[in-house]
């Protein structure tokens, strides 16, 4: 009987320790897992570091939870592990923002139309410590992780303005940057 209880205690302790490990690993790595799945989804049909222009969200929009039907999005799955990535976007006259998300969902950059200070935003995403010649003197943003997502949001102010706004957001780009210094 004592041996049985001892055995039960050992197995229970083993199970508990593993369960605690699974619990904390799930909480810690769930954001990376979900962002990884989103990156996979975004790069299934187009290469990484390419801007995409999804349709205005409706009930069929299933790529990302809680899409806003008031906004037009442009989205790019970036990967700076092979080199910097250049992101450009025109800035419309209504509410607009450009944001960057790390591989663990952290929102490490957000610029809106009022902060943009012009009709166009251009920036370079790099891994921390990357040296750039950057002759155009573009803002350089160090990413928190090699992969992540760039997202622009453009407010649809009216149905009449929709075609012009849609055309403008389709000018946003995301592509490898090639001015890196040896």
């Amino acid at each position: 009987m004592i041996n049985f209880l001892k055995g039960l205690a050992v197995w229970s302790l083993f199970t508990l320790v593993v369960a605690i490990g699974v619990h904390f690993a799930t909480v810690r790595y769930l954001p990376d897992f979900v962002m990884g799945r989103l990156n996979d989804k975004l790069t299934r049909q187009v290469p990484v570091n390419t801007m995409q222009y999804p349709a205005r969200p409706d009930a069929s929009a299933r790529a990302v939870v809680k899409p806003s039907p008031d906004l037009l999005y442009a989205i790019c799955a970036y990967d700076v592990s092979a080199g910097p990535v250049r992101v450009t976007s025109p800035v419309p006259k209504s509410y607009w923002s450009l944001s960057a998300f790390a591989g663990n969902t952290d929102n490490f950059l957000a610029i809106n139309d009022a902060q943009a200070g012009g009709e166009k935003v251009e920036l370079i995403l790099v891994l921390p410590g990357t040296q750039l010649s950057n002759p155009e003197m573009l803002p350089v943003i160090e990413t928190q992780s090699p992969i992540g997502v760039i997202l622009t949001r453009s407010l649809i102010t009216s149905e009449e303005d929709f075609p012009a706004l849609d055309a403008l957001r389709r000018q946003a780009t995301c592509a490898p940057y090639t001015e890196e210094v040896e």
Partner: protein
Amino acid sequence: MKFLMKIVLSLLVALMAGFISAYLMIEKNSAASAVRNGSWAINTNIGAQDTDPYVKAHVALHALLALNKSEAIYFVANEDQEGKPLQGGCTYKVTGQSIDARWWTITAYGSDDFLIPGGEGHFAVSVNELGNTKFSFPIAPSLKAGTTGLVTAEAAQFSLLLRTYNPSPSLLNDPASAALPVIQKESCDD
């Protein structure tokens, strides 16, 4: 053989317990760390780098690609004024006054966190339609075309998300005291 079976059984139980407890804690901890204001809950740590790992996991599941508070804050309502879950078969009246932000909008989502099928033209209402004054709009299983309001027929339960972009300092610093819309149940389908 018996030893191997014990290990397999133990690992199965541990995996189940680990996943289930993580899921429950992610849901519960996020609710517990949110600031309440009537039917609405807000967590201003969304998107922040130094936030609680449970909140971060909750964002991954329910608010992926949400902006941090420097740009926007989000209020979520899962219940009406009396604390009852929001149901797709019921009609509600939402009343409020303009919210202190550059732009704001209220969107209805099904329990899967996506826009509710059948709600075309009535997925969201914003300051564009409601204006910067006192407002009132319905949430109902169906609405006439052209009516300002939200349609929720095909959702058993739903939630509302109030997005506030570029919130004023007072809204950002004290969301618990903000005058937020009141969600009042009027009737339910039998």
